[in-house]
């Protein structure tokens, strides 16, 4: 780290976060050095701080290997609207830099691909919604017109469908040329009950040669929307970033605000949060294992998984009044003492454990299922590392990374668990890693239920000092989630950055499906189980 400090313009420490300000000339070198030698790239974002010191700032967050510490590289941009791109050396930065370009209008110099990512044609170019001086006028919004006349003629089938169904877009998909290559466009509205996204396959026969996903259809301006709320109202929004990770998102957000304002939550609140995080992981992992069966046509496995998941959802409902554990988190603690329903939890867990075991026995004993999973959708460790993937996907490709271990929070430092990894990197590995995590969650919940915990459910909220900021993080069922919050002069949100695990993992999907057959794409996709809404924000 000496090498980094020597070049730093200023260093500020806050809890386990170290903010290191650097100049534009050293920016790329320092980040590359940190990524290659010292730690893992976690996220990158911009903030409009022109009101404070007249600069935009770029923040790059790294986890330092082997200790609970973050190095945050800060690059202030005074007059320039561009900065040196990291993507050349750190491929994981690819999407972040495109995102910053779309939302702030700050350009990464020498970035290999600066097409728009987050914003589509409904937003004119040169609209940068996350800048502070930007107020979106409705007239700026480009509404694609389908006139009534056209609608009628369409229904009469007199009009050619091409006119309506052509994709009016200035976005150019990458094109693969060669003999026998053809394109299959899919989405954004899909056949199943899933979220919207467009996939452009370039296939040779049945084999996928290249896949380009175009996402962000569900972009809801969440980060900007946080700025219009108070910090405590924001919990509600954080819960609604990604449906099946509601509780983990809310936890990470609350942790960030609590760290920023110096609130110490009680042991009881920590225990409830840890328990609910594991319950969330449990229903997701069991549901996902069942869902993979839908990808191989094993209806009985799908049905069994869905029933077990339903039991856990109903338990959630009885515990917190929400099947998605919403409303259980507040800034400063939790709203429900779920330990009072210990019997219910343990009984349900008993039933679930039995059902889950027989499900796994069925799945692993069904050769037709296992064969479809093996060697399908392989993501090598090397690629996974380069792309900075997280969660089950990373662990199934042999990367031993889990935020619960790397940066212990809540009661995770007291619980015994080992991240499960596999070196296979295929769909089968993603199933077995999930299975191992199910067992791990069950045993963690059992351990948590054994002891009593002291303290109130929630601690009083403190006033928030102007311009303070902090990170909050936890491990969702899909991987690590990060929130970075900053207050303005009145102690209200000035910037809320959220980075969901799906944002890290989506860029890896095209690499995993390369060389697989088109019919295996749903299976690969299910094994990743990424959230569109979480990624699109």
């Amino acid at each position: 780290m000496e090498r980094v400090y020597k070049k730093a313009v200023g260093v500020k420490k806050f809890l386990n976060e170290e903010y290191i300000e650097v100049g534009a000339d050293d920016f790329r070198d320092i980040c590359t050095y940190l990524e290659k030698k010292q730690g893992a790239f976690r996220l990158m974002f911009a903030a409009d701080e022109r009101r404070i010191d007249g600069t935009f700032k770029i923040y790059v967050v790294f986890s330092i290997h082997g200790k609970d510490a973050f190095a945050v590289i800060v690059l202030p941009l005074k007059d320039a609207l561009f900065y040196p791109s990291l993507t050349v050396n750190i491929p994981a930065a690819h999407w972040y830099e495109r995102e910053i370009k779309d939302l702030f209008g700050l350009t990464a110099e020498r970035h290999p691909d600066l097409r728009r990512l987050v914003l589509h044609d409904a937003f004119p170019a040169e609209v940068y919604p996350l800048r502070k001086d930007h107020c979106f006028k409705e007239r700026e919004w480009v509404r694609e017109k389908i006139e009534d006349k056209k609608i009628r003629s369409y229904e009469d089938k007199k009009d050619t469908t091409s006119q309506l169904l052509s994709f009016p877009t200035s976005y150019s998909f990458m094109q693969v040329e060669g003999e026998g290559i053809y394109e299959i466009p899919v989405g954004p509205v899909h056949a199943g009950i899933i979220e919207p996204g467009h996939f452009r396959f370039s296939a040779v026969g049945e084999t996928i040669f290249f896949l380009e996903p175009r996402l962000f259809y569900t972009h809801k301006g969440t980060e900007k929307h946080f700025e219009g709320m108070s910090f405590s109202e924001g919990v509600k929004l954080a819960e609604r970033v990604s449906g099946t990770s509601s509780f983990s998102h809310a936890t990470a957000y609350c942790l960030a605000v609590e760290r920023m304002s110096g609130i110490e939550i009680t042991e009881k609140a920590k225990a409830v949060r840890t328990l609910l995080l594991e319950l969330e992981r449990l229903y997701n992992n069991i549901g996902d294992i069942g869902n993979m069966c839908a990808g191989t046509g094993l209806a009985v496995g799908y049905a069994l998984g869905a029933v077990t998941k339903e039991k856990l959802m109903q338990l959630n409902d009885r515990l917190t009044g929400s099947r998605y554990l919403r409303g259980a988190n507040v800034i400063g603690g939790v709203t429900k003492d779920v330990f009072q329903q210990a019997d219910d939890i343990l009984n349900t867990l008993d039933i679930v454990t039995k059902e889950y075991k027989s499900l796994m026995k069925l799945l692993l004993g069904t050769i037709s299922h296992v064969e479809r999973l093996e060697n399908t959708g392989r993501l090598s460790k090397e690629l996974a590392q380069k792309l900075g993937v997280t969660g089950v996907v990373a662990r199934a490709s042999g990367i031993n990374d889990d935020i619960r271990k790397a940066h212990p929070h809540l009661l995770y430092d007291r619980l015994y668990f080992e991240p499960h990894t596999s070196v296979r990197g295929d769909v089968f590995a993603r199933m077995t890693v999930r299975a191992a995590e199910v067992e791990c969650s069950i045993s963690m919940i059992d351990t948590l239920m054994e002891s009593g915990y002291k303290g109130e459910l929630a601690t009083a909220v403190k006033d928030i000092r102007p311009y303070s900021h902090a990170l909050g993080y936890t491990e969702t069922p899909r991987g690590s989630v990060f929130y970075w919050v900053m207050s303005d002069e009145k102690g209200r949100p000035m910037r809320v950055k959220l980075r969901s695990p799906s944002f890290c993992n989506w860029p890896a999907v095209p690499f995993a499906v390369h060389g697989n057959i088109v019919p295996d794409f749903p299976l690969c996709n299910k094994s990743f189980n990424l959230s569109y809404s979480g990624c699109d924000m």
Partner: protein
Amino acid sequence: MIISPEDKAHFVDLQKGIDSIFGRSLRIRQVDAGSCNACEWECTALTNPVYDIQRFGLDFVASPRHADMLLVTGPVSKQMELALRKTYLATPGPRIVLACGDCTVDGGVYKGSYAVTNGVANVIPVDFYIPGCPPSPMRILTGIRKLLAVLIGKQAGEMM
């Protein structure tokens, strides 16, 4: 007990409604117009063996062209607006639009964000709403039951 007896009572009405209006088969096309995905999972849960909606003749279909009803979720993000309208157009008439979840009413928690259109009715005509964030599978089912009751009432009115 996964489904309570009171809830089971709803099923009888539901079945009657579907039988009388839709000839025992009501096909639904689900469109996610920028939801947080919890609403979709509740729709998916409807097809699991616990709720098993197929036994009533209800089912989710893969194409709007096969659908009697669109079930829309989400506040309608601006980037999904066009796709939603196209899906609406691709559904043969007479079509019912059922908006599911608080978001669909006025944008819900996302109301006022620069990237949403604040509710489905701003994009396509809506016939019915089911509130909830998300509405549980049972609530969606009772919602559909009420919708059918209204339709039966309308039909009876037209016949008189």
